[in-house]
């Protein structure tokens, strides 16, 4: 009879769209322990914690507290049982002080007694934060502490932290870890969600590894290694040379096995530094080269700087330092239209943000970025006929299902929107194609269409930078795979040279050759 605070049995979650996020997950949360939840994108970490904190009901399975089965209808029910969650994205009122933010949501409270309580909490836990400064004047790390205080002030026994270090500096991370151990020593339970192997090894006592909605393994931190965790995270299905995605091509594509990049680099990124929206350095000193006729895949857990890297290359985000060279020309911080005139095509990660204008028609969207080209404009007027002909050609060539050229793009399915974007970008006849998450959210048919297309383009001698969170996809399509972690590459290799363990290590932030 192990003592426990919360136990989950056979948790299964099926989303309305049919996605199975969790299937039969068992989990025990014990007092005085930091429990790590490790897994890559889509492993089910977030879904699991949402269920534990009352945000989502499970499809089946049950939750047990020491006093019997419990059922959460909202986060409030979970809080009553002493389960509190700190989300990745903060929910603070910027103009309120830390004290006021904590008071908010507690109902009627006496501020001075709350202050005493918080001061005591701060003392006990070492979670120092100025109580009377508006939150907008605090550093990100301090804001996170306010979030944690908010939860602790409700006397929780189980504290859940979702990727808490993703916004922190190394110093702040070290302080957070110290505090988490403090909390553990006071007999509370901490659930620490991460995809970073080093952190999981550094701060936890026990690690549960999730893979594709199932528990892939449970280990005592003291008895495990980064290698074992990596294997558990990635799974054993990927053997050297294994090609998990079936490629429905007529004839196998010839891979660049003859070896070595051919010709001059068409895209060269040198010592690139780019900041994220929040001002953190998202890409740190990154360098690589892309050659004609190859697909360079960038794998890695999302949020490690891939988005910022792509935006910087495509002229949509300011480059802080370093340079981007396209076909031998320095194009650092040049506007997007100039880049595509030189030969850059960009399939953006966020279709609805950069890819299409939802309220515009298919025809209007088919020339976005091309509107000033001579074929489509004459003396400042749009040549409506030429635009429609162009759109009609894309619709036919890429078999886009649409009610018509004048139908708004929002009436198209995701796959057809993506085909329209891809078609438009290819009509620019690019030498270099940046494909960011090109198959995300697409049905199998559309995804296969895009993958085949990328391979065909590679055969034609175009250079493709493929950024994808879908590891299978990257491994199947790429000639070389780079693993991105916290803004740099932890390693670059041919897919055939990779084992599950090395992939896991590289994705988890252990540099090639150092682990």
């Amino acid at each position, binding site marked *: 009879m192990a003592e426990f605070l919360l136990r989950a049995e056979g948790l299964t979650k099926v989303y309305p769209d049919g996605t199975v996020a969790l299937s039969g997950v068992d989990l025990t949360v014990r007092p005085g322990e930091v429990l790590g939840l490790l897994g890559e994108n889509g492993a089910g970490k977030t879904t699991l914690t949402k269920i534990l904190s009352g945000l989502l009901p499970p499809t089946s399975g049950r939750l047990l507290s020491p006093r019997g089965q419990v059922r959460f209808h909202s986060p409030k029910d979970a809080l009553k049982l002493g389960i509190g969650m700190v989300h990745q994205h903060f929910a603070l009122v910027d103009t309120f002080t830390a004290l006021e933010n904590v008071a908010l949501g507690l109902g009627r409270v006496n501020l001075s007694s709350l202050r005493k309580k918080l001061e005591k909490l701060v003392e006990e836990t070492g979670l120092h934060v100025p109580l009377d400064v508006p939150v907008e004047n605090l550093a990100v790390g301090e804001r996170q502490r306010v979030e944690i205080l908010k939860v602790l002030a409700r006397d929780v026994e189980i504290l859940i932290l979702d990727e808490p270090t993703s916004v922190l500096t190394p110093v702040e991370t070290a302080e957070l870890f110290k505090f988490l151990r403090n909390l553990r020593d006071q007999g509370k339970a901490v659930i620490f969600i991460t995809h970073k192997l080093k952190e999981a090894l550094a701060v936890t006592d026990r690690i549960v590894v999730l893979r594709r909605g199932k528990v892939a393994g449970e280990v005592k931190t003291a008895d495990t290694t980064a290698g074992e965790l990596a294997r558990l995270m990635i799974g054993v299905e990927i053997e050297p040379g294994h090609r998990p995605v079936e490629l429905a091509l007529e004839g196998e594509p010839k891979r660049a096995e003859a070896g070595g990049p051919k010709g001059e680099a068409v895209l060269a990124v040198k010592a690139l530094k780019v900041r994220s*929206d929040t001002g953190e350095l998202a890409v740190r000193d990154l360098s690589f080269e892309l050659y004609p006729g190859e697909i360079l895949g960038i794998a890695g857990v999302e949020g490690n700087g891939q988005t910022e890297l792509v935006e910087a290359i*495509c002229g*949509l985000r300011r480059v802080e330092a370093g340079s981007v060279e396209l076909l031998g020309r320095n194009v650092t911080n040049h*506007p*997007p*239209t100039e880049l595509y005139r030189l030969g850059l095509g*960009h399939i*953006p990660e966020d279709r609805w*943000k*950069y*890819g*299409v*204008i*939802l*309220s*515009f028609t298919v025809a*209007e969207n088919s020339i*976005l*970025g091309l*509107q*000033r080209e001579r074929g*489509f*404009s004459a003396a*400042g*007027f*749009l040549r*409506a006929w030429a635009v429609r002909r162009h759109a009609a050609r894309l619709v036919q060539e890429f078999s886009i299902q649409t*009610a*018509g050229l*004048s*139908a*708004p793009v929002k009436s198209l399915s995701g796959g057809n929107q993506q085909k329209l974007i891809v078609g438009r970008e290819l009509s620019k006849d690019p030498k270099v194609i940046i494909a960011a998450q090109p198959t995300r959210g697409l049905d199998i048919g559309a995804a296969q269409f895009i993958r085949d297309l990328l391979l065909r383009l590679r055969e034609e001698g175009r250079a493709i930078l493929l950024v994808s969170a879908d590891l299978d996809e990257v491994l199947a399509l790429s000639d070389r795979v780079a693993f991105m972690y916290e803004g740099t590459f932890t390693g670059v290799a041919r897919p055939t040279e990779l084992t599950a363990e090395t992939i896991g290590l590289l994705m988890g932030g252990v540099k090639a050759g150092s682990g």
Partner: protein
Amino acid sequence: MSWIWRGLRPILESVLAGLIGLGVGALIMWAWGYRPWPAYVALFKESFGSGYGLASALANATPLILTALTFAAGARAGLFIIGAEGMMYMGAMAAVALSLFQLPSGFHAFVALLCAAAAGILWGFIPAVLRAYRGVHEVISTIMFNWLSHFLSFYLVANVLVDPIRAEKTLSIVKTSRLPLLIRGTDLSLGIVVAAGLALLFYVFFWHTVAGYEVRAAGANPYAARYGGVSPQRTVLLVFALGGAAAGLAGAVEVMGRPPTYAVYSGLTNLSGFGFDGIGVAMIGRIHPLGIIPAAIFYGGLQAGARLMQMEAGVPFEMVRAVQGVIVLALALPELTRIFKVFFRSIQRKGART
């Protein structure tokens, strides 16, 4: 088939909204003991049932078409330009000031219109630059500029452009600079042609030119527009200039084409409100240049019919205004709900950036 439906849908929505407005207005009158049917008959008989009434409806619509274009141009680019009122005053001042010069008939009016458009553009320049390069929200800056324009015009009317004989108004527009009346004995001048013509030009610009495409793209999805090579700064400057020109012309046609005085009264009483009414008209017209024309005529008709509704049906003036307000609100509602979504998104976006 579906494209026909897409084109008809907004019209059907507006008709339905109008009927609901009329219904609610009728309920209000009925609740206070007035008979709705004769009141509505009087309203529409006056405004659309007679040649004279129709001419007044069109005359009332003239400045409204133009100020509505100002708002619509902004809204198409995702901006909320509330500054038509101030730009319009400046246009009127420019038109009056041009009467200090002597030019050949007709040509004089043409030059006066051009100067009025330029005055409107100038008045929008500072808010436009602040918005484009400093991110100052245009709602705040254009409202402030409305007040600046208001008091500047007050001063000009009373001290600079004042009629030496009749101090309650400015100099009258000289004959060579007046817009000819289309129908004698009415207020309907060539201004309606200017206004409708500009609406047509706006339509061509927004839907058939590359720059118009880019402006609409920036309004519908600023990220995708930037990705497509559209400069956000240029878009803001361009739209403010278009809107300023339209609003400046609104002030000019109102003084150059309104008998009998062809002047601005002290207190700006014969001008004030057109800029704000234009926002409502733009909403009723679905911020579409061609939708704005019928919307403005309808709005102008409501104003023209108010008098007879009061006299013939015995509905007090306050009640007439209330009922008309309900009708206008109902008509504006479909666009209003859409535009508020965009508006709050733009505020949130700005909040997230800091």
